[in-house]
């Protein structure tokens, strides 16, 4: 009974596996469709098991924003073409153990790529901070 965020990065994280280096726009349309269908299948499976919390995909383009003093408009910067880290989207799950969270991440990572071969993409697994337990000492 803990929540985890499974983060998918466009850029960043450990080095990609060889089968994950071909950009999606160079796959066949069927391979793209199969990949998307698999992601939906993972979400459906998690829903059916009562483990699903949320899934969102992010636009790769955004900008940086900050406060610039009272009465002044926010300052924006970017978008930047080159970044060290870029988040593609996430899935949030509520599961019984960290082992189960890793299992779900591995399931997602087995999504098919070119030739139907599992992409073995890296997913970052981050625990949510919880409420403080009632029993403290």
């Amino acid at each position, binding site marked *: 009974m803990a929540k985890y965020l499974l983060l998918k990065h466009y850029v960043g994280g450990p080095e990609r596996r060889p089968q994950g280096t071909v950009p999606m726009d160079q796959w066949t349309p069927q391979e793209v469709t199969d990949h998307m269908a698999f992601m939906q299948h993972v979400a459906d499976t998690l829903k059916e098991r009562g483990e699903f919390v949320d899934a969102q995909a992010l636009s790769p383009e955004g900008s940086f924003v900050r406060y610039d003093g009272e009465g002044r408009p926010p300052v924006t910067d970017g978008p930047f073409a080159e970044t060290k880290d870029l988040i593609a989207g996430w899935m949030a799950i509520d599961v019984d153990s960290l082992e189960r969270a890793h299992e779900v991440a591995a399931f997602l990572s087995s999504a098919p790529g070119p030739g139907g071969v599992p992409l073995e993409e890296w997913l970052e697994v981050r625990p949510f901070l919880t409420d403080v337990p*009632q029993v*403290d*000492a």
Partner: protein
Amino acid sequence: MTDLGALFKDLGPRVLGVLVRRGADFASAEDAVQEALIEAHRRWGEDTPRDPFAWLVTTAWRKHLDVVRSESSRRRREVADHLEPDPGPVTGTDETLLLLFLACHPALSPSSAVALTLRAVGGLTTRQIASAYLVPESTMAQRISRAKRTLSRERLTEPGDLAVVLRVLYLIYNEGHSGEVDLADEAIRLTRQLLSSAPEPEVAGLLALMLLHHARRPARWSPDGALVSLDVQDRSRWDTGLINEGVEILQSALSLDRLGEFQVQAAIAALHADAPVAEQTDWPQILEWYDLLMELNPTPVVELNRAVAVGEVDGPRAGLAAVARVPDSVPRHTAVRAHLHERAGDLETAHSLYAVASRSAASAAERDHLTRQAARVHQRLHRA
């Protein structure tokens, strides 16, 4: 409608208990009770029956029989059993026990057992449970129906596993409160019900533990929402009524001389509750209880808490030596070391350990607390 809601919450589980006692399988009994509640919701507005409980039992049982009959028209079997149930008592506390044994069946995962317990025994709605655990309602609904499916494949071995029930109730209590439902209150209510049908010392121990911790809750948070640690809590804000009740329940449990870990944990909580100021805490006795707990349930978490007690009894150096024997993957390991180093006068180390501990805290409130501790020690360092 809120009055009806409270009534349904109370009556739903009792009606379910009757149906299960009469031999209905858990999943279809639960469906029948839900349907009866929906019908009550529709009809009671203008015309509430004189005996709502009897009305619900009759209606739910009729709905259950409808399902059984329509199934039996396809495959005629076991109908007689269902149509001619033992009359049996209509109410009774052991229905609570039966339902808890089912909802906390060892075949269920902890999260499923928690959800099913709150729904079937606690009478909460799926929406309330979902909001308490911050998941979508559809996710919680799936979790509950999966649990019911799992149960329909399992046979209940009588008696059920009381230790599993206690663990599930403890999990519910520990979750605390978010959303409209106070899970700690729910857990206390259910544990009280359990104790009246299963007067076992460990059930009493768990209830005492809950009450003694609950008593401290008003002092656990500052007005601006920050966590306040036990040693600096305003003890005048502790609920003495709950403390007295907890101590009384614990004492009668201990007198039965069948010790278990919940009784020991409650005894430790009682010793904290007994000290009018933190400095008067009876740490030598607390350490003895931790030694006992290590015999009953030697986990690294218990060993870490024991090390804190060692630090209070024999000084921070002895405490640090005790911590060194605990695997450093245990939560709060670094925070305990920080505290002991501060008491030993090593502020440099304490500061950096508090900072490290804040980055590995499991909760936001704890992280903020440890960050403030680091900042406080930092300030002490630079004033000195």
